[in-house]
């Protein structure tokens, strides 16, 4: 009597080896078909990484700049105001309890700033001249790229501080050599260039002079145009509520109060929407990658009928054949997933270094990327694997 036949068995290690046969023997095709997954996962990881890194940058920026600053401007238009604020408004706002600092700038509409006196008056370059108080920089949490800001010492003199865009447009890169600009009808030495002001980007396109200089040298009749107020963060809502009536008790409705940090947060929200869009695009690329893998696997099954026949002759069950082809598809997509995570991480790191951000790649993006690629691989491999298993060994061996 014969002993029962031990069932056919394929160890996990052998299954892995068998799944790798197709990849080893058709390397270029494997790389190309995994590329779809690389691009899909890479895009998704990069989008998540960049969004996280930029968010962290924004948070640290907000942290640094504070969210307790309010800006008040006069509304302008027929019947709704002149765009100016009452002269005494800074002093009045300063008397609100929780207000820590208040400063104002006054536009000098009669003056423009030019690189020199040969520039035609019409070519003002969209730059504005403001009279500013010495505490403006501190209130805005700004910093100087070069030189110094207006201070008490320079208050009586015709000196100018340029915003970052102004300096760029006037072609002034360095203050190492004494530099002056043609402002109004006077030469104003430039004493400083500010870094870009995140909380008040409009001042990047301005040339600032002291209020005394504006009155003495430019003959300006100064009326505050904008008020910048720092208040106790806990009371910021209350301060915001009383600000219009304090600034302009006669016409509180002609005062517009904004919180510049809200604009930064709104920018982040807009970027989040873009992130979703790019994630969607990444998902589409991933899906296309999956279809590519399915396609390659179906072709592979057709091409390797002889091998399937041989394996059946060697004792493989249908399940062994389907495990082999499913394994191959999973391997392809796994390689694609790992490649995609590496690509996404590199893109994030490269861009973050370029923008001087912290490099942040969410662990969820890495794990999610690999898992997503495996899911795609499993789905893409299912049909080819079933098809391979259903190949009749006799037909497969006859096919060649």
């Amino acid at each position, binding site marked *: 009597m014969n002993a029962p036949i031990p*069932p056919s068995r394929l160890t996990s290690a052998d299954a892995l080896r068998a799944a790798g046969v197709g990849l080893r023997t058709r390397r270029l095709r494997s790389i190309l078909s995994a590329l779809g997954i690389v691009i899909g996962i890479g895009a998704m990881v990069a989008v998540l990484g960049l969004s996280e890194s930029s968010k962290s940058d924004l948070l640290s920026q907000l942290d640094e700049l504070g969210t307790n600053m309010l800006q008040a401007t006069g509304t302008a238009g027929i019947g709704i105001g002149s765009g100016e604020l009452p002269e005494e408004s800074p002093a009045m706002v300063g008397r609100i309890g929780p207000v820590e600092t208040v400063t104002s700038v006054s536009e000098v509409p009669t003056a423009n700033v030019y690189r020199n006196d040969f520039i035609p008056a019409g070519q003002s370059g969209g730059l504005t001249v403001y009279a500013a108080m010495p505490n403006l920089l501190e209130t805005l949490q700004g910093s100087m790229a070069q030189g110094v800001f207006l201070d008490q010492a320079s208050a009586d003199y015709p000196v100018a501080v340029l915003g970052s865009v102004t300096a760029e447009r006037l072609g002034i890169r360095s203050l190492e050599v004494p530099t002056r600009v043609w402002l109004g009808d006077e030469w104003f030495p430039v004493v400083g260039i500010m870094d870009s002001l995140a909380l008040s980007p409009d001042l990047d396109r301005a040339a600032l002079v002291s209020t005394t200089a504006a009155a003495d040298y430019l003959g300006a009749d100064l009326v505050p145009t904008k008020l910048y107020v720092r208040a106790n963060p806990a009371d910021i809502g209350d301060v915001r509520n009383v600000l219009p009536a304090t600034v302009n008790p006669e016409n509180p409705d002609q005062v517009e109060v904004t919180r510049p940090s809200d604009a930064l947060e709104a920018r982040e929200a807009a970027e989040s929407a873009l992130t979703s869009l790019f994630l969607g695009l990444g998902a589409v690329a991933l899906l296309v990658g999956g279809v590519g893998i399915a396609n390659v696997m179906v072709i592979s099954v057709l091409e390797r009928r002889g091998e399937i026949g041989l394996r059946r*002759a060697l004792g493989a069950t249908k399940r062994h054949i389907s495990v082999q082809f499913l394994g191959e598809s999973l391997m392809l997509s796994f390689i694609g997933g790992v490649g995609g995570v590496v690509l996404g991480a590199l893109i994030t790191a490269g861009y973050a270094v370029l923008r001087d951000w912290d490099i942040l790649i969410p662990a969820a993006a890495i794990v999610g990327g690999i898992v997503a690629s495996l899911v795609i691989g499993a789905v893409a491999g299912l049909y080819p694997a079933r098809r391979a298993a259903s190949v009749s060994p006799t037909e497969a061996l006859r096919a060649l």
Partner: protein
Amino acid sequence: MTAAEPSVRPTIALGMRNVVKEYAGEPPVRALDGISLDVAAGEIVAIVGPSGSGKSTLLHVVGTLDRATSGSVHVAGYDVNALNDKALSALRSRHIGFVFQQFFLLAGETALDNVADGMLYTGMPLAERRQLATAALDKVGLADRSTHIATKLSGGERQRVAIARALIGDPQIVLADEPTGNLDSKSGASILALMKELNDEGTTIVVITHDRLMAREFPREVTILDGRVERDSGTPL
């Protein structure tokens, strides 16, 4: 009765009784028409017939790759009709060795690993399979080619690798389908000599060929025509 219970004498490696194989069609094609054939353990037999005579179908049926429409088939003492697909796979993995005209070697793998694949589906660890493969390669005279990529060897050498793969598990029967069909006459003759040598050492071999001249060199020659045994030069035991 269990599937594993044998029902013919164990000295018979292969037994067929009134085997019919029909392929569906209008009218159905009868590839095997009542074949009865016994191959004793340790025998070497040539099954010869022209193209379309049914010899490949015969190989597939006795190799358990295909089922007979009617009649009984016993391989290595097992009643094939009583075995399900999984059990047939197990039977092939341990008791039947195949040699094909097209060699069917895996591209990119060494001769040693191709031979080791002969026992891939028995669950034996790779290291052990490689040990057996080394011995099998030695048996077919290719010990010095074990690390070569199998598909880069000469035709005769490739067929030797395929034979070693069929032999590795010491099967009860080796089925060879036109083993010299893709070889030049010199390599063909050496493969034939090798098979006789292996038979001398006790391996049961059934060679399927359309080459009458070659078939004559075997001690037993079974001629197939239109799915029937036309002539059998000897009876086993």
